C-alpha cells in the first residue's frame, strides 16, 4: 500500500489571484498559483530529547525514515492523516508547529504493534506514539485524551487492589469522560447477554459486582508502586523542564 504523505504546504499559504498582471503577463487564476515562501526559524531542538526521556520514546534516534511503520499502520489505513513516520521526522528536526497540527489524533494509536514488527531499526514506533501523546499532554498542548483517562482509571484500580473488575472500569470511565452509561448499544448488549442465562447465574453475577476483586496482602506492593510512580513522574517533569 502506498504511503499517503502529508504536504508541508499549508492551504493558507497558497495564493491564487483573480486578476493580476505582472510585467505584461497575465498571472490570474488557478494555473498561476503561488506558494508564499516561509522561513522556519522556530525549531525546537529540545523535543527529541524530551520525547526520548518519556517511556517508549527511548529509541526514536534510530529512525532512518523508511516508512515501514506508516505502511503497516492500522490507524493509517482508516485515517491517512495518522502518520507515525512523519511525526518521528518532525520530532527529530524539531518542527514543533507542524507537529502540533496533528496533536488531537496522535493518541489514537491502537497499540497493535504492526509498526514495531515491521521496523528494521527497532525504533519501537508504538512506544514513540505513547511517549509523544504523553509529551503533548505534559506540555499542555492537549487535554487528557479519552485513552489517557481510560489508562488512568484502569491502572488506578490495578495499583489499588492488584486486580480489576470490568464493570467498575466502565462506570468510572464513563463518569470521568461525562458519557451516559445508558448507551443504546450497551443496552442491546446487556439484553443479549442475559438471553440464555439462568436466573440463578444472573443473581450470582449481580452479587459478584458488589465485591471488588482483590489480591490478598497487596498493601506493600501498593505502597511500593506509589513510590515508584512518584519518582518516575518527578523524573519525567524534570526532563521536560517543568516545574510545579
Amino acid at each position, binding site marked *: 500500500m502506498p504511503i499517503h504523505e502529508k504536504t508541508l504546504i499549508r492551504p493558507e499559504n497558497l495564493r491564487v489571484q483573480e486578476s493580476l498582471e505582472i510585467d505584461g503577463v497575465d498571472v490570474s487564476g488557478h494555473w498561476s498559483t503561488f506558494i508564499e515562501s516561509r522561513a522556519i526559524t522556530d525549531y525546537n531542538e529540545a523535543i527529541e530529547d524530551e520525547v526520548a526521556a518519556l517511556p517508549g520514546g527511548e529509541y526514536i534516534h534510530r529512525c532512518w525514515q523508511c516508512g515501514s511503520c506508516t505502511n503497516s499502520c492500522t490507524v493509517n489505513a482508516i485515517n491517512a492523516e495518522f502518520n507515525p513516520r512523519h511525526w518521528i521526522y518532525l520530532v527529530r528536526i524539531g518542527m514543533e508547529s507542524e507537529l502540533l497540527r496533528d496533536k488531537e489524533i496522535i493518541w*489514537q494509536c491502537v497499540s497493535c504493534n504492526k509498526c514495531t514488527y515491521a521496523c528494521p531499526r527497532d525504533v519501537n514506533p508504538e512506544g514513540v506514539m505513547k511517549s509523544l501523546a504523553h509529551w503533548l499532554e505534559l506540555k499542555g498542548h492537549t487535554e487528557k485524551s479519552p485513552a489517557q483517562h481510560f489508562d488512568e482509571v484502569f491502572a488506578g484500580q490495578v495499583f489499588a487492589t492488584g486486580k480489576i473488575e470490568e464493570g467498575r472500569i466502565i462506570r468510572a470511565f464513563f463518569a470521568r469522560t461525562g458519557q451516559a452509561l445508558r448507551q443504546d448499544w450497551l443496552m442491546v448488549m446487556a439484553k443479549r447477554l442475559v438471553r440464555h442465562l439462568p436466573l440463578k*447465574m444472573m443473581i450470582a453475577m449481580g452479587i459478584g459486582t458488589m465485591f471488588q476483586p482483590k489480591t*490478598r496482602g497487596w498493601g506493600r506492593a501498593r505502597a511500593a508502586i506509589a513510590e515508584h510512580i512518584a519518582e518516575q513522574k518527578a523524573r519525567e517533569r524534570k526532563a521536560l523542564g517543568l516545574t510545579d
Partner: protein
Amino acid sequence: MSAKYQKVGYYPGCALEGTGHAYNRSTKALGKKLGLDLVEVKNWNCCGAMEVKNIDPKLQSYLSSRVMSIAANEMGLDTVMAPCNGCYHNLKKAEYDLANDPATIETVEKLSGKAGHKAYQAEQVETIHALDWIKQAIGEDGIRERVKNSLSGLKIANYYGCMYTRPRHIFPEKDQGGDSESTLQPHYMDDLLAAAGAEIVDYPLKTACCGGAHTLADSDISTKLVLNLLRTAETCGADVIATECPTCHSGLEMHQIRAETEFQQKTKPVILYFTQLLGLALGVKPKKLGIHENISDALPLLKSRNLA
C-alpha cells in the same frame, strides 16, 4: 504424545473472571476432558493489561513478574499457561526484559523487595498460551482420536489478534520452522480445529487489530476495525470466527452489536472461543463450555448442525 504440559500453572487473569467467563469455564472443561492438570496460580494479580505500560512499561513488567514469581518460588511450577493474549503477551514481555534490560531488572528487584516477595529471575518458568498447551500436550492426532461430534461442515475463520504474535522478539520460540508457530501466519488454532473436523477458511485478517486497546476510549475506530474483520470473515464464507483472547472476543461481540445499532451494519458470523469449539467436538455439553454465556448467539447455528 509427549508428556509435555500435562500439568501447568494456570493464570486466568482478570478478564476471565469477568467478560471472559465463558473462556475460563471452557478452558477448564477442556482440560478436564483431556485429563490435563491445571493448577491455578495462587493469589495472582493483574498482569498490567494494555494500560499500565502507558503509565510506565517497567511497572507492567513488575506486575507480570510477580505472577511468575509466585508460580516458580511459592508453587514450584515450571510452566505458566495464560489463555488471554494480553496476559500471555505481558508475561512474555516481562520475561524478555528481565533477560535483557538491566533497568527493568533493577526496578523489578526493588519493587519485589519492598512488596515482600522473591524477585522473579529470567527463565524460572516458561509462559505458554492455551493454544501451545493443547497443541503440545494433546496435538492434532490426540484431538482426532478423541472427536465424538465432528465439526465437519462448520466453516471457521481463525482470529488470533495482535498480542499473540507481535512484537516478534518477545516470542523467541516462534518462527523456528517445522511445527513451530508462525508470527505472520499463525496456524495452531487452524491445526487443532481442522483436527476436530472443521473446515478452515482462508482468512487474511488472522493477525489484524480489533482496536481492543481503545474499545471504549475511541469506539468508532474499534467498530470500523471489527466490522472489517466480520465482513471479511463473511466474504470468506465463515459461519464462525474462532477466538483465543477474551479482549478480542468481547471486542468482536460488542462492536458487532455497535455496528448494528449505531451504523445499521448487520453481519452474520457468530463468535466462539476455540476452547468451546474443541470442547463441543470432544462431546462436552454446551452448558459446561459456557456457550449460553456468550453475547454472540451461536446456539441456533450449533443446533442446526447437531452440535448442541
